[in-house]
């Protein structure tokens, strides 16, 4: 049994809703309450406007493991992190932290707009818990990582938001606590820098440090964490291996599932020409539909009912979007020329789109399914975000990224053909 770094038992946090709505008390109100309290007697304490942001959360984290906390907005993730990083106290329960603690709940903690980049590195580093000597020792590395070069002595208020984020993360990246809490900090900054941070963070994880990581980004959670905890309405829903927990998370919301079916045609999306019956994500090998290895081919199967009156020719279109809402590509069943030219009969139609392995980039892919006819163009059935799945790149060396584990931008990641050969043994003249 590994040494325990964090143990939490029965953690709970209660907020007074009144407090949240109107955080500033009124002195007069308090004085009035103090005067009238003896008259009202007891029992006024629990007024029923309490809100439990966190309820009975328990877990243990062995030293050196990286645990992801996921959940929808308001699930209690940030509250849990605030308790663990000692910003607020739990209302009930107890937790023990064994080791030097660092927390990174925002990028650029303690930055002051009037101070220069150089001054803010010192200040933010100190606030995050670094010693002065430590900051000075790492100073050049921090500047290099942030890539702010000539702006080092410019007040931060003149920085672009991207530069501020880079500088903020750079300071934090060089923290060396034994236990590190990280909140959604990767949700800011450009995609390129996010990947750079992810790379830096997996280094942190490999350095034997204990990390608790809150994020909405399933690819990040999957790449960094071996274990995840899913919270909902302040409670632990499931705590286990990351892929299982992520699957539970994705299944629990609308437009998050790898398989949709409309058993009752009357309520299914569509009209008399075309009405959806099902949309499914089918990875090769029949594994879980929501989390798919980047190397596997994937089938998207659409079944629809058609009454196909006259010479109308229903056609299935699929629109693929990534997590940022970027349309990766659109495809339709025009590519099956035999079907396209065949005569249509009423009944049930199944259309399958084959996506090759090593083609999509890692991350969440959301698929919108449409059945339409052309000439004139008419949409008959449409289901936005019908299915979704997550492509995972395990960086095992035979994928597109090879053995390269850092940032790997691009909305798709196709395995393209290459030919490389030595042309001559003559060295370039002049060298």
């Amino acid at each position, binding site marked *: 049994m590994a040494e325990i770094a964090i143990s939490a038992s029965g953690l709970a946090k209660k907020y007074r809703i009144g*407090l949240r709505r109107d955080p500033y008390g009124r002195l007069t109100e308090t004085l009035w309450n103090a005067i009238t309290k003896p008259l009202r007697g007891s029992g006024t304490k629990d007024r029923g406007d309490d809100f439990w942001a966190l309820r009975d959360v328990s877990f243990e984290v062995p030293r050196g493991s990286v645990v992801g906390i996921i959940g929808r907005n308001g699930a209690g993730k940030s509250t849990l992190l*605030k308790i663990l990083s000692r*910003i607020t106290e739990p209302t009930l329960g107890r937790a023990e932290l064994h080791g030097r603690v660092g927390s990174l709940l925002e990028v650029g903690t*303690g930055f002051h707009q009037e*101070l220069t980049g150089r001054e803010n590195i010192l200040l933010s580093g100190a606030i995050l818990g670094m010693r002065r000597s430590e900051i000075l020792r790492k100073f050049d590395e921090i500047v290099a990582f942030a890539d702010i070069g000539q702006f080092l002595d410019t007040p931060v208020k003149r920085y672009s938001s991207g530069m501020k984020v880079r500088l903020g993360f750079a300071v934090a990246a060089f923290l060396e606590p034994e236990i590190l809490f990280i909140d959604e900090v990767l949700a800011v900054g450009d995609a390129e820098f996010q990947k750079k941070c992810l790379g830096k963070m997996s280094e942190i994880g490999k350095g034997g440090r204990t990390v608790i990581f809150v994020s909405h980004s399933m690819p990040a959670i999957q790449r960094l964490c071996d274990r995840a905890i899913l919270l909902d309405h302040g409670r632990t829903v499931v705590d286990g291996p990351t892929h299982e927990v992520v699957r539970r998370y994705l299944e629990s919301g609308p437009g998050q599932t790898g398989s949709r079916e409309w058993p009752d045609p009357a309520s299914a999306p569509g009209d008399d020409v075309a009405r959806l019956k099902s949309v499914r994500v089918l990875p090769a090998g029949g594994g879980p539909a929501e989390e798919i290895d980047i190397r596997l081919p994937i089938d998207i199967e659409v079944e629809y009912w058609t009454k196909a009156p006259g010479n109308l020719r229903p056609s299935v279109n699929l629109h693929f979007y990534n997590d940022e809402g970027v349309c990766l590509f659109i495809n339709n069943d025009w590519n099956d020329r035999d079907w396209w030219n065949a005569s249509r009969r009423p009944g049930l139609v199944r259309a399958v789109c084959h996506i090759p392995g090593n083609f999509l980039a890692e991350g969440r892919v959301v698929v919108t399914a449409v059945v339409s006819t052309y000439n004139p163009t008419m949409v008959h059935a449409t289901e936005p975000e019908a299915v979704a799945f997550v492509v995972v790149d395990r960086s095992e060396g035979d994928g597109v990224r090879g053995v390269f584990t850092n940032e790997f931008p691009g909305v798709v990641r196709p395995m393209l053909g290459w030919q490389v050969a030595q042309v001559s043994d003559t060295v370039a003249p002049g060298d």
Partner: protein
Amino acid sequence: MSPSENPKTGSGSAWDGQVVVLEPRHGWRQLGLREVWAHRELLYFFIWRDLKVRYKQTAFGAAWAVLQPVLLMLVFSASLGRLPGVGPAGLPYPLFVFAGLVPWTLFASSLAGASNSLVSGEAIITKVYFPRLLLPFASVGSFLLDFVISLAALAVVMLYFGAVPSLAILWLPLLTLMALVTALGVGTFLSAVNVRYRDVKYVVPFLVQLWMFASPVVYTSTLIPAQWHVLYALNPMSGVLEGFRWALIGGPRPDDLIFVSAAASVIFLLGSLMYFRRVERTFADVI
């Protein structure tokens, strides 16, 4: 350090080898001054930040530390100073009032700065842990530099009036500490109250003004009837101000004020630190 935190070793960082227990705490807690001490480097950084920021965009910069008391000295000399008996006999009124304004400015600015320190530090209070006491402490600390600069101005004024201090000047650091303790006591308390009740923002300027007239800044304490002196000395600034004048300009040592004032300032500070620690755990939730 609260009772549940148990430091084992002290090597490297403030947090090495430490088990931190997080659980609900109620009622009174220890003052946590040991934890403040362990974070003294961060305290230094906060002071440094306050100083940098304060003078960064001003045209006169640190000259304001001198200008404020000098301008007040001119105003008071031109007005109150003309009345007979406001200052002690045989002492030029400008010298008298300036020797009071220098420590008073230290106290008044520290008090105002400290009482606002938590509210203006909201962004970090809700994002990272550190002993919250550092904020009001740093605020007070940052005005020490201003004070040292204005002491130089005081030396010039003394030179001008030909006042030569005796060995009593050695008491000056202790008297300065007393002013700081008083400012910390009131400022720390008000900073904690300010988290929940922003009324403090309106109370402080008013309080400082009233307090100035309740202290021997522009008039001498000999105007107060002797039988009231013990009561008068409960205001720690009475002892500080008359002590300053005695240490720099001379005259009889204001024994009737200094010792009561010193005791009062320490009791103020202890009480307010205890209050601060009691409500500290709710700061991040209410601020």
